[in-house]
């Protein structure tokens, strides 16, 4: 008989609280990856309107030239910058670079892989995503 595994489930997987900033970064990476994929599909549909001539292209463009459209594009910029910057960190980390050196464990057993370097990179990724969003807002609303 297969017993109930008492798995934490999607709520546990997606809950970014309780643990450190690294778990938040995991969560953001997922959300931004999925968000970008959705945008990417929409974007390719959007650009395909160019085949139907100027009128179709212009009416498609109008969708993003509202306030909500601008806010949406700003979010895309933020997602793109965070996902890219954090993605670069993860590519190194997944290869064992920047995750610290093994030592003889001793109380209080602080894990070396959850080090300042990685935490700073996560905060920096969030930071430059925020800056890019502000720049994006200034361009979009400055028109």
């Amino acid at each position, binding site marked *: 008989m297969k017993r109930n595994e008492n798995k934490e489930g*999607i709520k546990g*997987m997606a809950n970014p609280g309780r643990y450190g900033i690294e778990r938040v970064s995991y969560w953001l990476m997922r959300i931004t990856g*999925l968000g970008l994929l959705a945008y990417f599909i929409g974007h*390719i549909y959007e*650009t395909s309107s160019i*085949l139907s001539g100027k009128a179709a292209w212009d009416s498609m463009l109008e969708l993003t030239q509202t306030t909500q459209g601008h806010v949406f594009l700003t979010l895309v910029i933020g997602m793109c910058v965070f996902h*890219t910057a954090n993605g670069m960190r993860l590519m190194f980390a997944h290869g064992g670079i920047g995750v610290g050196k093994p030592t003889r464990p001793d109380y209080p057993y602080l894990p070396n892989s959850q080090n300042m370097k990685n935490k700073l990179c996560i905060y920096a990724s969030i930071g430059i995503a925020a800056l890019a969003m502000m720049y994006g807002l200034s361009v*979009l609303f400055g028109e």
Partner: protein
Amino acid sequence: MRESIIMKIHYGTALGAVVLVAVHILYRITMMSFGDSLEYENVVANYKFVPYAIMLELILVLLSVHGFNGLRVILLELKQGKSYEKVVTYGCLASMAILIAYGSRTILMTSMGMT
């Protein structure tokens, strides 16, 4: 395919896309004002500029592969089972192919002046 090969492709496509997407976005803000860069005529001109069209095609392929593999990873972790995992894998592959075909159609036809 071995999972390590798939994931190496995942990292590789991401790495390639970083540069190309940067160029793509810089195109919007360096050549002319953001609004002008989206004007119909300018966009058609972009597509007709073959190196840029090739770059768009590359972005399209790289990120479709990266994005749909990312989706496959998430779905595989969400639920398990032989038939479910088969559906996820082939579903993602098919969506990837459809998106690439649909985007390529735009790039090819526009760059050949069939608008």
